[in-house]
């Protein structure tokens, strides 16, 4: 009983420590197309990231990118380049920057910025002041992208 409480307390502490380290969208520093540090201070989970990539209400990255690793999904969009082998082309810091705010990396791109919570016009009320993905989801996606190697 005592021990269980102790564990719960430790778990609570870790969670709050993680929260404290989460960088808010407006505080992200994106320099030369790179964000070096994790947005949460924690490593991402590639298994979750794979889900976020496909989920239409989350990343919906599949709307625009063909991805061989998700061949169980029927429809892959073609608006952006195929994502296969993306970890051979970009570092984790670069991928974090691309997902966080693609517009700072590819000028005028159609790709949405997934971790900004202002700077867009006329959002539907439910989405106003929010980013498309949470910091943890961005980290999960980045961790997943890092598994996509061909070489």
């Amino acid at each position, binding site marked *: 009983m005592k021990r269980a409480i102790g564990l719960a307390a430790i778990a609570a502490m870790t969670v709050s420590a993680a929260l404290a380290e989460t960088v808010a969208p407006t505080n992200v520093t994106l320099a030369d197309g790179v964000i070096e540090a994790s947005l949460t201070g924690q490593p991402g989970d590639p298994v979750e990231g794979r889900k976020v990539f496909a989920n239409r209400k989350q990343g919906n990255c599949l709307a625009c990118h*063909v991805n061989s690793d998700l061949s169980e999904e029927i429809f892959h969009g073609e608006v952006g380049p195929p994502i296969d082998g993306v970890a051979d082309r970009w570092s984790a810091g670069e991928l974090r920057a691309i997902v966080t705010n693609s517009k700072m990396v590819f000028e005028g791109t159609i790709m949405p910025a997934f971790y900004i919570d202002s700077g*867009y016009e006329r959002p*539907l009320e439910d989405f106003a002041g929010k980013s498309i993905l949470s910091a943890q989801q961005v980290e999960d996606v980045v961790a997943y992208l890092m598994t996509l190697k061909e070489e």
Partner: protein
Amino acid sequence: MNLKLWISLAVGSLSTAAIAQDSNELVIDGETLVTETAAPAHLEDFDTIYSGWRFRSRETQALETDDFDNPAFVFVDQGLDLWEEVDGSAGKACASCHEDVEDFAGLRTQLPRVQDGELVAMEDLVNGCRTERMGAEPWKWSGGNMTAMTALIGLQSRGMPVGVKIDGEAAPFWEKGKELYYTRVGQLDMACSNCHENNYGVMIRADHLSQGQINGFPTYRLKNAKLNSIHARFKGCMKNIRAEPFKEGGDEFKALELYLASRGQGLSVETPSVRN
């Protein structure tokens, strides 16, 4: 290893589905419609414009080629009933004053247009007669009665080339519509142009992106099995990018409608078209 090979083959076949508009011809009742023509001079970024019909699947395309197969005609028939139906305090029907709905041939090609300094769409004209001449309630902009009537009236222009006026009094409205077309909105921060100008012809998940032309409206969509107004479609596209839509029948959507119509100058009116 084997599994990996299988996967890349599967995806390979997916991506070969990447075809732009097809080369099919739209023939309805022996008449060939213009689904492809030179872009109007004001469009700087492309040479050729295409009807949305050219981006749909064979099966969806086929539904539009025969009025007996075209599910929109159920609603056109409802429009014919409404045409005869007395409504409002003046005790009149459309047919009381307008001899024949065929007299509206050509009207669809010119709308929206400026009248007494205001930009008016077909829905405004219909509701103008209802409220001012019939003493009846206006119909909802995208409601069933309205789309049935705009389909019936639009059908009278089927096969005629879109030819809206964009200069003179129309110019400021057109400019406003153009600005809206290129303005990014919503949490996804996209403009109409991002999808319908820069990326038409490619797949966006399960959808084959067209140029977003409005020559076929109101359009019957397999997705919701009814007629959809132009403004309802605009609203849908805005919601998809998580943007607060403008009001149906409001100034912004009417200006956008004029601008989009002008991007389709020369395409045949296809009303009522079929889309997915």
